[in-house]
């Protein structure tokens, strides 16, 4: 289970993003122009890839201003 590996796999199918891992949740932070995940087909492809990379959940972060972003943390 590796966020960078999943990120590469997503980019290889045309989904431009970065990936953060929280346990087995992959959080996709889309690049500014990314729209592939707005389609059912794109989501299906992404969900197939996360399973292949050991993740169980996939969430798309809703874009905001960069200053809004805080690092994920667990306690």
């Amino acid at each position, binding site marked *: 289970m590796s966020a960078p590996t999943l990120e590469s796999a997503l980019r290889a199918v045309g989904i431009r993003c970065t990936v953060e891992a929280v346990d087995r949740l992959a959080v996709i932070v889309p690049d500014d122009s990314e729209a592939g*995940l707005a389609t059912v087909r794109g989501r299906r492809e992404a969900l197939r890839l996360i399973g292949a990379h050991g993740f169980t959940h996939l969430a798309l972060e809703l874009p905001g201003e960069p200053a809004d972003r*805080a690092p994920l943390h*667990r306690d």
Partner: protein
Amino acid sequence: MATIAAHPSSHPVSPATEEKERALIAWLRARGSALLGFSGGVDSAYLASVALDALGAERFLGVIGRSPSYPEEQRREARAVAERFGIPVIELDTEELQDPSYTANPTNRCYFCKSELWGRLVPVARDRGFSAVIDGTNADDRSDYRPGAAAAAELDVESPLAAVGLTKDEIRVLSRRRGLSGWDRPASPCLSSRIPYGTAVTADRLRRIEAAERAVRALGVTGDLRVRYHGELARVELSRGELDRWLAPEESRRLRAAVLSAGFARVAIDLAGFRSGSLNVLGGVTAG
């Protein structure tokens, strides 16, 4: 013994389901009286309605357990159902958030919650002379991971819906026939179920989750909804049929603003949509 009220017959019910309802009535009458842990959800509302018919208001009582993990909106709905159908109810505060075993949020968290709930309700039943303490567990629930059932069993709390084999779908059909307005309401487990196992349950986190779900509902989201807690990030699970709408740029901005207003710093939509027991999967928990 109370008379079973006539109910509208415009919603057909299969003979097998009819038979289960008759068995439920017989089960309740055999106990003589009962106190129900009443959340106002589909299962307990249906059970309360049948129990009231079968036993009468003198021999039946619903008890709402109030705590920060129980959404205020749901408490109001429970009171409204009780008022509309004449179901006798009282409310009691439960203190599971004072129990470190609960707030540590282990995979058997529900055990500690239900121990607290039933530990308060069973003495009430004893003091008031109710012969049975019952809950709204249905036949489908037995296949899910539910450590709370162990706490119920330890205190002899019984589950009549499951005992007669009534499934969720059957309960919805029977509830609709009875005119229970919440017959098609999505399941609504406690707010702590939105926090991953191992992450502490706190009153502040529960308040944020509740506020976020309320704000999202206010946008017009229907069907299943969970706001899952991941620290500063809220992961929103919606019914799959809602995904296209809320991923569209304008609507996603509204959704994000609603969740941020509850105190989260980041918002994400789960691309698989709503999954019951989603955090069980994330935590690697299976039924057993």
